[in-house]
């Protein structure tokens, strides 16, 4: 009996002491949380994609409220409405959000590429890339196992029949999650409405690139020379189009005609039409030239 009372007393005492200590500590170490953080977090899309550069929506909300240097327009999936809302809540100046979409910088489907070997492992790009850099002939190209599509938080990517992912421009928020999981870094974020792009990621020299893929960029620089706006740069045997310059200045993409392999691809409807016109004009000019030459030869005779 005595022991039982003892036990009850001691446990009550100990529990009381620890409880009091905790209660006191709760007051002493209380942290004032800015209520704005929660409001900002509510306003964010909660894709937890990390495109803002923070660990998640909550981390960005905290940063944007507490740090005056963090701009309110970092949420790319949220686009302008969210940026405006966050700006209003935090009292910061709203700025333009550059709308972006994912772009698969490889146009080499099953028909256009060669195969190194037959891969029979897990259907996952990261797994496949561990085996000699993947089964594709080109070590820079899209392997087509759809890791990007599986990781898209907004369901904007699907795998096409030719083994390349298709971006649903309406669903894509430009968060860049797919680009971060792609072991080949073949996905780039590009401005919405970019008229043309080099859909190739190969840094191999011309002949080597051409050997494994019929639509590879061989880094010849013909497009660069033809571009009047300096929108194209060639580095490591790979031409890259600065979509912003194209979008702002160019409405006559002559680079499309100059590319010997067709690695530059028109992306918008306008660019596709323009490319047809340019190609027709070029074919006409060529035919005329040939006719002229034939005539000159005739006359010489």
């Amino acid at each position, binding site marked *: 009996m005595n022991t039982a009372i003892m036990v009850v007393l001691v*446990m009550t005492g*100990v*529990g009381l002491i*620890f*409880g009091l200590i905790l209660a006191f500590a709760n007051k002493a*170490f209380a*942290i004032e949380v800015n209520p704005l953080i929660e409001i900002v977090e509510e306003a964010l899309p909660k894709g937890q994609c990390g495109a803002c550069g923070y660990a998640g929506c909550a981390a960005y909300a905290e940063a944007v409220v507490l740090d005056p240097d963090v701009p309110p327009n970092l949420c790319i999936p949220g686009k302008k409405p969210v940026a405006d809302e966050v700006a209003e809540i935090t009292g910061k100046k709203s700025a333009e959000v550059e709308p972006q979409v994912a772009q698969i910088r490889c146009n080499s489907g099953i028909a256009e590429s060669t195969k190194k070997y037959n891969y029979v*492992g897990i259907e996952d790009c990261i797994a496949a890339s561990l085996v000699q850099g993947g089964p594709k002939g080109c070590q820079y190209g899209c392997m087509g196992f759809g890791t990007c599509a599986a990781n898209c938080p907004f369901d904007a990517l699907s795998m096409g029949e030719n083994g390349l992912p298709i971006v649903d421009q309406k669903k894509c928020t430009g968060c860049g999650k797919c680009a971060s999981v792609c072991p080949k870094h073949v996905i780039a974020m590009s401005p919405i409405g970019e008229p043309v792009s080099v859909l190739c990621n190969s840094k191999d020299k011309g002949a080597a690139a051409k050997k494994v893929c019929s639509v590879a960029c061989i880094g010849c620089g013909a497009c660069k020379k033809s571009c009047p706006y300096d929108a194209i740069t060639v580095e490591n045997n790979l031409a890259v189009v600065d979509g912003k310059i194209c979008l702002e200045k160019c409405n006559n993409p002559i680079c499309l005609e100059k590319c010997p392999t067709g690695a530059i691809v028109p992306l918008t409807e306008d660019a596709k039409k323009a490319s047809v016109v340019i190609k027709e004009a070029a074919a006409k000019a060529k035919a005329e030239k040939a006719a002229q030459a034939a005539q000159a030869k005739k006359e010489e005779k």
Partner: protein
Amino acid sequence: MEYFTLFMGAVVVNNFVLTKFLGLCIFFGVSKNLSASAGMGIAVTAVMVMSSALAWLIYNFILLPFGLTFMTTAVFVLLIASFVQLLEMVIKKYSPALYNMWGIYLLLIATNCIVLSIPLINVESSYGFLYSLVNAVGSGLGFALAIVLMASCREKLRLADVPKPLEGIGIAFIIAGMLALSFLGFSGMIG
């Protein structure tokens, strides 16, 4: 030398996870990726050392003199649970960076058997204060070693072709068994 033997013994020979099978819930719960498991290992070690020190003081200065040693387990449970809570508050207040790293693990540890077992073993074997601390550090690092090994295996496993019925936790148990088997090789080496 005595301390070193105790330390090595706690790390590998008497590894708490792999030879005594304590702390298995966090061992399986947090060993899915390497960085999280390393964080967990460090958090467990730190909490173990601090709670061992506290428990030793309480045992030797309160429970023992008043003849309440039969209540050791109950008191230690209370002590560790509240201490971890307190630690969480203090870290949250003074080091938000550390809290971001540890915070989620701390509450998982609060009621874990592995943290409770060290102070209990310390007092049962009537270790001195320093001896208790060395034992706690060793056991904590042993836990960290085990969970990091496990996480490395499971990270590799993600790419392996596991039979359907064994996917996930099933294969994890098999791996743990194999790790335990290999740690059996250390038994009898020290103490």
